[in-house]
């Protein structure tokens, strides 16, 4: 439980390490708090209530349609990219040090990576706040932002790579020091996620460095939007797994301990993560089902591979729920479903993650519909899609990170969680808001409402959408209240004067496994075969199409700014 303390931590992090992790969380939560302001503004705008002009007392000027897209870009970049990346690298730092029980091999390397991310954030923020980069977080060319936006993103991504190198060297040193031991599951899980991220971001690096920056600097006359989108979605879908896998790591390796049980199977957990490494990247064409430049056969192959990634997802569902059932039955839970009531719902950290999991069930179902080549045509570019990814990144990921924060911040600050009961309430409020919001977004998506559109200004909105648009607004506002509760709880916890009693600590919850991790097959602890298989599968799934698109490149689309529909304007 979040309030449970121990006098004998298994491995005590240094003050410097805790401070370093704390900076990650500070920037993550700040980005979340600022970016989320625009969430309810989007939602209210859909219902015809435009509050953007009310923000004009700030130094930023929000006007008309531009305000909607500037707000949407700030919301997407700060919440989907910055909150997640900073939180994940901080969480990974903590997990690596604690579970390998050793300091980072080259702490300076990780610090350089982190501060590079911070510089990147500031550099990207300048054009974002100045309405010179309102290109949404997908920044599809030929939309063209200020060059600082792209340079900032490059610094954030490269910074995260450098932090990753620090983790790999640390794991390498640990394996040298402990040749007979299997890598602890949690360390394996979070480092594997960084590896997957590094492979996946090759796509966005190629897009920005090879296509967008040459256009922005004026070295070439235009850009090839099709190739840009292919590069983007090489990164874009595994990006979702980069967000999800740390949450999964917590569900597999921490939540069972918090719930009073054990991980059902260490081997199944490892297998699921290796399969995510293998299958997360080669499926990006399922985001491009209506792109005319990608042949139908390749779209079909990527559709099948997307269903392939459903296998480790189902493994995760089974293993995590079995771990929770085990915990609940130890706590006296009875019945086929009655055991769910016996879980520790009074614990804010546990409740947030359980509710994240419940919402993600619907996210998973929606994901199967998205990946279906034919059914996708009903949903494509409708509000169904943002409704779906609010169930993934804004629910499974964000609510899980809330839950993790409820023990992590007390752990690194040595201070008790402020108002633990409010932590429970915050998750329920957010959950309720998300249920209303996402259901409405999915429903009007099925009715044909387009995404990326200020529906409050659209003259074609039929009457049958209005009730749902009102629910979008109400749900969005309720979510924001729950989120602000989280921000306040974390801020007060971090800055309060009250400390844990002398000698007491809040330890990192690390679950034991019901099976002996040392009995796990050796191939579940070997990197080389999995990395080779991953690269080979990517080459098979993307190689021919990339060669075709790169050799057939037509950089003929001139860039245009979001404020002007005139190319080059």
């Amino acid at each position, binding site marked *: 439980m979040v309030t449970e303390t121990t006098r004998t931590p298994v491995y005590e992090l240094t003050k410097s390490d805790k401070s370093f992790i704390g900076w990650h969380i500070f920037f993550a939560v700040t980005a979340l708090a600022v970016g989320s302001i625009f969430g309810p503004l989007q939602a209210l705008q859909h219902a015809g209530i435009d509050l953007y002009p009310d923000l004009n007392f700030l130094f930023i000027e929000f006007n008309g349609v531009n305000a909607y897209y500037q707000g949407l870009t700030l919301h997407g970049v700060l919440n989907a990219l910055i909150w997640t990346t900073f939180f994940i690298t901080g969480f990974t730092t903590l997990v690596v040090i604690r579970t390998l029980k050793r300091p980072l091999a080259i702490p300076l390397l990780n610090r350089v990576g982190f501060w590079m991310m911070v510089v990147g954030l500031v550099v990207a923020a300048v054009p974002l706040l100045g309405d010179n980069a309102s290109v949404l977080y997908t920044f599809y060319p030929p939309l063209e932002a200020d060059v600082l936006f792209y340079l900032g993103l490059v610094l954030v991504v490269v910074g995260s790579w450098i932090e990753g190198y620090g983790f790999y060297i640390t794991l390498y040193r640990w394996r040298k020091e402990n040749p007979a031991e299997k890598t602890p599951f949690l360390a394996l899980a979070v480092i594997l996620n960084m590896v997957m991220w590094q492979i996946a971001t090759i796509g966005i690096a190629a897009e920005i460095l090879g296509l967008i920056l040459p256009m922005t600097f004026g070295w070439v006359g235009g850009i090839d939007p099709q190739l840009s989108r292919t590069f983007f979605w090489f990164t874009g879908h595994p990006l979702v797994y980069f967000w999800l896998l740390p949450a999964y790591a917590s569900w597999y390796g921490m939540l069972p301990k918090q719930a009073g049980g054990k991980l059902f199977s260490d081997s199944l957990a490892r297998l699921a993560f290796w399969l995510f490494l293998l299958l997360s990247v080669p499926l990006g064409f399922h985001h491009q089902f209506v792109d005319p430049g990608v042949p139908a056969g390749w779209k079909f192959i990527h559709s099948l591979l997307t269903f392939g990634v459903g296998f480790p997802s189902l493994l995760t569902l089974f293993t995590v729920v079995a771990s929770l*059932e085990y915990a609940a039955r130890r706590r006296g839970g009875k019945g086929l479903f009655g055991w769910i009531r016996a879980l520790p719902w009074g614990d804010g950290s546990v409740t947030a993650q359980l509710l994240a999991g419940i919402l993600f069930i619907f996210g998973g179902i929606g994901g199967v519909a998205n990946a279906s080549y034919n059914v996708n045509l*009903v949903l494509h570019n409708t509000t169904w899609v943002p409704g779906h990814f609010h169930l993934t990144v804004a629910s499974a990921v964000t609510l899980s990170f809330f839950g993790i924060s409820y023990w992590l911040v007390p752990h690194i600050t040595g201070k008790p969680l402020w108002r633990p009961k409010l932590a429970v309430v915050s998750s329920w409020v957010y959950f309720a808001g998300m249920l209303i919001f996402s259901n409405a977004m999915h429903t009007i998506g099925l009715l044909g409402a387009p995404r990326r559109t200020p529906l409050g200004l659209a003259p074609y909105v039929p009457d049958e959408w209005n009730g749902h648009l009102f629910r979008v607004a109400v749900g969005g506002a309720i979510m924001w209240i729950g989120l602000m509760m989280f921000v306040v709880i974390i801020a007060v916890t971090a800055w309060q004067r009250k400390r844990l009693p002398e000698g007491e600590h809040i330890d990192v919850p690390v679950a034991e496994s019901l099976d002996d991790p040392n009995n796990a097959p050796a191939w579940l602890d070997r990197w080389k075969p999995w990395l080779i298989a991953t690269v080979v599968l990517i080459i098979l799934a993307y190689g021919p199409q990339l060669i075709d698109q790169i050799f057939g490149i037509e950089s003929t689309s001139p860039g245009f700014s979001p404020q002007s529909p005139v190319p080059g304007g």
Partner: protein
Amino acid sequence: MTSDNGDETQGEFKPRGTVAFVAAFVAVLMLMWFSIYIILLSRGATI
């Protein structure tokens, strides 16, 4: 059989509730997928 510390072992623990949970998930998934498929059909084969 129990382990040294008195806990159930993996072999002894039967996750019946989990199996029911996963079965319910698959049923809901199929129901929702087919409901969207029917929308697809209702809009005509070429949408």
